[in-house]
C-alpha cells in the first residue's frame, strides 16, 4: 500500500482532490480489460491465419495467374514500346488481388468455424477424460441444495450441470462447458468437504459459480480452441507446403509462431489469474468472503518449480490480500499493456495488408484500425479509469502514464516486426536499418505516450465527475470512444507516417522534403475523420468539466457505484481541474490546427502535378502526371503509377553488383515510402541488370501525391551493396 498523501482542503475547509476514505472499492465498480485481452489474442491469431492463407494462395493459385497477367500486359498498347511499358495493367490484375483476399478471408473463417467446433467438443472431451458423472439426487441431496441456492443467488441465466470426478481425491472444483451449456466439475475430495465443512464447500462452489457469472468459461475455452484450430488448419498446412519450397521462409515463420504461441500462453495465463481474483471478489459479494479466506489460508504453497507466469492461479496469499483490500485491482499493469500493444500491432499490420489487396488503401488502413483500435483502447481506458478512481478516492498518485506509454508503445512498435506479414518482408522492412527503425519506434512510443497521457488526464476528469453521478457512464463512454478514435488515427495514419519519417538512411532528407508535399494525400481523405476525432477529444473532457461546475463540484449525494459496502462515504468538494483542462484544450487545438492545415493543403489541387513535360505516346487511361529530371512518372485512373528508371540509373558496377536503391531505399521497397501506395511490380527489362521499371498502385486519392513523392525519390538512384 502506498503512503496516503495529506488531504488538501479548499477555502471552506472541505477536502478536495486529496479525498481519502477507508471504505473498500467494489472490484466490479468499473469494467476490467480481461475479456478484451482475450479478444486481442483472438485478433492476433485471426491476423496470423489471414496472412498464412494469403501465402498459401500464392502457392496454390499464384502461378495460374502469372501467365495470363503477363500476356495481358504484353498485349497492351504500350507493350511494343521498349521505353515505356504501358497499358491498363490494373485491369489485367483486377481478378487477382480480390481472389487472394477472398481466399485468405475464407480460410480464416474456416479456422474460426473449426474453432467453434473444437469449443463445443472440449467439454465433452473433458467430461470423458475425467469420467465425470452426474451425482444422484438421493445420494447427495444436501450438495444439490447448496448448488441450487448458489445458482439462485448468482441469478445465472442457465443452471450449470453438476458433474463429479468421484475417485479424484483433490479438493477441487472447475467451471467448464460452453456459454449455452455451462458445467461444474467437482472432485471427490470436494464432495467430502461438503459433508465435513459445508461453509468451506459453499465458498468454493460460489467461486466457481462466479466464474460462470463472469462469463469466464466461453472466453477461456474459445481462445484455447482458436489456437489449436489455427495450428491445425493454418499453420501446419502452410509450413508443410513451404518446407519443401522455401525453408528460409519457414524459419522466419517459425520464430514468429513461437513468439505468438508464447504471447497467447502468457496472456491467457495472466488473464486467467486475473479472472480468479475477480471470481473471488464476486463470491465475496455473495457472502462467501470469510470462508473463502479460510479455504485459501488452508491452501498449501504451490508445489513444483513452475514459474508464476506459467501458473493459472495467483498465489493464495495474494488472493487473500485482494479479497480483504481490492485496491490492488485498481491500477495499470505494464506487462498487460505490453501484451495488448503487441497483439494490436501484430493484428493491425497483417489485417491491413490483407485488406489492402481488395480495398482502396485508405479504406483498408482505416478499416483495419477500426477493428483493432477499440480493443486496444478498452485496455488503455479501462486501466486509466480504474487507476484514476483509486487515485481520487485514496488521495494517492497511481502510476498510469508510464506503464501505459511504455507497455502499449513498445508493444505497438514491436508488433509489426513480430507479425507474420513481416516474415515475407513487409511493413517496417522499408526502414533503413536499425537506426531508422529506432527512430520509428521512438516516434511511435512518443505518439502512444500522447494518447496514454490523454487517456489518463481526461479519464481522471471523467471519474471525478462520475463520482457525483449515480452512473459514471454518461461521462466514461465518450472518453472511451475518444481514446478509441485516437488509436484509430494513430494506427491508420500514424504507422505509415511514422514509418516514412523514420527512414533515417541516405534517403531521409529526400523523404523529409517530400513529406510536406504528400501530406494532403495522407490526410486529405481522412480530414473529416480527423476533425471528428479532434472534436471527440475536446468534447469528452469538456463534458466532464462541465459536470463539475458550480454546486455540482461541492459535496453532494454519495454515489454508490464505486463501493463494495453501503452506505457509501460522503463526497468531498472538488476544485475544477483548470490546469489539466487547459492542457487538454491545447492538445485539441494542436490537433485541430493540424487538421486545418492538412485540409488547406489538400485543396491545393492539380497544380501540384504540373511540371516540365515528358512526352511519351500514352494509351487511353494513362496520363503524364509528373515528370522531373527526364523521368517519366505516369499515372492511370486505376490508381497505378509507372516509372521508367533508365534515364536516371547509373551504369551497374560490374565488379560490385548491388541492389538498385531509389531515394535511399531498395527499389523493391519504394512502395513503402509512398503513403497509400504499394509496389505492384518491378520490371526487369534488361535482365539481369536489375529492375529498371517500377509500377506502383495506390488509391485514386493518393495517386497524385504518390507520383509527386516518387519524383522526389527519383532524385537519388544508385546501386548499393
Amino acid at each position, binding site marked *: 500500500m502506498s503512503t496516503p498523501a495529506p488531504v488538501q482542503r479548499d477555502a471552506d475547509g472541505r477536502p478536495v482532490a486529496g479525498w481519502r476514505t477507508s471504505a473498500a472499492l467494489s472490484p466490479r465498480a468499473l469494467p476490467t480489460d480481461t475479456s478484451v485481452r482475450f479478444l486481442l489474442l483472438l485478433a492476433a491469431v485471426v491476423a496470423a491465419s489471414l496472412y498464412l492463407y494469403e501465402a498459401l494462395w500464392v502457392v496454390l493459385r499464384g502461378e495460374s495467374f502469372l501467365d495470363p497477367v503477363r500476356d495481358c500486359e504484353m498485349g497492351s498498347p504500350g507493350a511494343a514500346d521498349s521505353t515505356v511499358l504501358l497499358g491498363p495493367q490494373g485491369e489485367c490484375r483486377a481478378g487477382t488481388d480480390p481472389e487472394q483476399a477472398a481466399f485468405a478471408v475464407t480460410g480464416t473463417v474456416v479456422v474460426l468455424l473449426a474453432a467453434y467446433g473444437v469449443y463445443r467438443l472440449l467439454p465433452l472431451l473433458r467430461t470423458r477424460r*475425467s*469420467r465425470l*458423472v452426474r*451425482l*444422484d439426487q438421493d*445420494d*447427495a441431496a444436501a*450438495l444439490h441444495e447448496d448448488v441450487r441456492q448458489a445458482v439462485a443467488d448468482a441469478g445465472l441465466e442457465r443452471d450449470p450441470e453438476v458433474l*463429479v*470426478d*468421484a*475417485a*479424484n*481425491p*483433490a*479438493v*477441487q*472444483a*472447475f*467451471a*467448464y462447458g460452453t456459454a449455452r451449456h455451462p458445467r461444474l466439475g467437482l*472432485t*471427490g*475430495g*470436494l*464432495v*467430502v*468437504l*461438503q*459433508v*465435513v465443512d459445508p461453509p468451506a464447500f459453499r465458498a*468454493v462452489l460460489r*467461486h*466457481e459459480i462466479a*466464474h460462470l457469472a463472469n462469463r*469466464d*468459461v466461453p472466453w*477461456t475455452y474459445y481462445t*484455447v480452441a482458436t489456437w489449436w484450430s489455427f495450428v491445425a488448419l493454418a499453420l501446419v498446412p502452410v509450413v508443410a507446403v513451404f518446407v519443401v519450397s522455401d525453408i528460409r521462409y519457414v524459419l522466419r515463420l517459425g520464430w514468429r509462431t513461437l513468439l505468438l504461441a508464447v504471447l497467447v500462453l502468457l496472456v491467457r495465463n495472466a488473464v*486467467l489469474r486475473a*479472472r480468479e481474483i475477480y*471470481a473471488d471478489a464476486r463470491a465475496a459479494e455473495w457472502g462467501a468472503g470469510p470462508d473463502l479466506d479460510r*479455504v485459501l489460508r*488452508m*491452501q*498449501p*504453497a*504451490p*508445489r*513444483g518449480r*513452475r514459474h508464476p507466469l506459467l*501458473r*493459472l*492461479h495467483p498465489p493464495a496469499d495474494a488472493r487473500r490480500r485482494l479479497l480483504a483490500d481490492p485496491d490492488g485491482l485498481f491500477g495499470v499493469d505494464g506487462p498487460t499493456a505490453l501484451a495488448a500493444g503487441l497483439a494490436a500491432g501484430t493484428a493491425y499490420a497483417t489485417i491491413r495488408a490483407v485488406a489492402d489487396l481488395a480495398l482502396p488503401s485508405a479504406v483498408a488502413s482505416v478499416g483495419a484500425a477500426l477493428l483493432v483500435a477499440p480493443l486496444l483502447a478498452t485496455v488503455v481506458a479501462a486501466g486509466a479509469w480504474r487507476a484514476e478512481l483509486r487515485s481520487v478516492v485514496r488521495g494517492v498518485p497511481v502510476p498510469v502514464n508510464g506503464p501505459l506509454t511504455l507497455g502499449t508503445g513498445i508493444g505497438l512498435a514491436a508488433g509489426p516486426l513480430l507479425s507474420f506479414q513481416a516474415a515475407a518482408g513487409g511493413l517496417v522492412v522499408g526502414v533503413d536499418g536499425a537506426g531508422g527503425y529506432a527512430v520509428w519506434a521512438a516516434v511511435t512510443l512518443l505518439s502512444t505516450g500522447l494518447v496514454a497521457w490523454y487517456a489518463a488526464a481526461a479519464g481522471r476528469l471523467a471519474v471525478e465527475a462520475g463520482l457525483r453521478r449515480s452512473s459514471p457512464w454518461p461521462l466514461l463512454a465518450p472518453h472511451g470512444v475518444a481514446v478509441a478514435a485516437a488509436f484509430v488515427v494513430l494506427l491508420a495514419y500514424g504507422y505509415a507516417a511514422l514509418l516514412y519519417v523514420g527512414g533515417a538512411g541516405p534517403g531521409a532528407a529526400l523523404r523529409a522534403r517530400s513529406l510536406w508535399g504528400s501530406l494532403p494525400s495522407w490526410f486529405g481523405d481522412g480530414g473529416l475523420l480527423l476533425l471528428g476525432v479532434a472534436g471527440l477529444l475536446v468534447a469528452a473532457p469538456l463534458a466532464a468539466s462541465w459536470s463539475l461546475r458550480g454546486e455540482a463540484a461541492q459535496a453532494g449525494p454519495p454515489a454508490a457505484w464505486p463501493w463494495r459496502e453501503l452506505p457509501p462515504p460522503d463526497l468531498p468538494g472538488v476544485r475544477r481541474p483548470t490546469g489539466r483542462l487547459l492542457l487538454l484544450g491545447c492538445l485539441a487545438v494542436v490537433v485541430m490546427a493540424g487538421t486545418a492545415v492538412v485540409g488547406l493543403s489538400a485543396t491545393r489541387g492539380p497544380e501540384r502535378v504540373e511540371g516540365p513535360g515528358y512526352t511519351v505516346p500514352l494509351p487511353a487511361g494513362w496520363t503524364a502526371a509528373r515528370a522531373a529530371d527526364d523521368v517519366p512518372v505516369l499515372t492511370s485512373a486505376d490508381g497505378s503509377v509507372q516509372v521508367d528508371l533508365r534515364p536516371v540509373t547509373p551504369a551497374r558496377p560490374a565488379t560490385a553488383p548491388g541492389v538498385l536503391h531509389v531515394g535511399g531505399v531498395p527499389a523493391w521497397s519504394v512502395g513503402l515510402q509512398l503513403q497509400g501506395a504499394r509496389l505492384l511490380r518491378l520490371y526487369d527489362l534488361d535482365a539481369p541488370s536489375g529492375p529498371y521499371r517500377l509500377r506502383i498502385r495506390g488509391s485514386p486519392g493518393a495517386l497524385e501525391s504518390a507520383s509527386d513523392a516518387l519524383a522526389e525519390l527519383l532524385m537519388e538512384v544508385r546501386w548499393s551493396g
Partner: protein
Amino acid sequence: MTAESERATVEALARQVVAEVSPAELPLFRATADRYFADPDGTLAVRGRPDEPLGFGAETVVALVGPFALDLVRRVVGRLVERLGDAVADAVAERVLRRTGAGSGGVASAGSASGSSGTGAGGGDSPAASGPDPLDPAQLALVRQVADEEARRLQLPPDRAQQLADALVASIATRG
C-alpha cells in the same frame, strides 16, 4: 458365485466399510463403484490435475477410501471363493445382500438359491434369521487373515488400511 452376484456383494460390503470408516464419502459411493468396476486400476490411480483452468483448490487432497474399500472387498471376496468355495461365498453374499436390502432383485435370488442349500438355517425373527448360517469361527479367522493380507497391499497408510480391514471383517461377521 455369478459375476453379478459378486459385484453386488462387493458393493454392499464396501458401502458398509465406507460408512464405517469415512461416512462423508457415502454421497460418492455409487459413482465411485460404477467407475471402479469399469476400470479398477485407473480408479485407484486418479490424481488431481494441477492448476486446472478456472479451477479452485488444486493443491489440497483428501484420502478417499471408497476406491480402496471396493478394491479390498473385491480381492477378499475373490480369495474367499477360492479358499472356501462358492457355497460359503454365496451364503455370505446372501446374508450381506439381505441385510443391506441390495439383493431384492435377481442377485438376491441367485444368492438365496445357493444359500438355501448351504450350511443350514439360523434362528431368530430377523430377515437374516431365515437365511444361511453365519460363518463359523474358523471361517471368520480366515476372513480376518485374508483381509489383513490384502489390506497391506493397498496404497494407503497402514493404519488407514487396517481400519478398512477391520470394518470389512466386522461387516462380514455381523449377523444381520
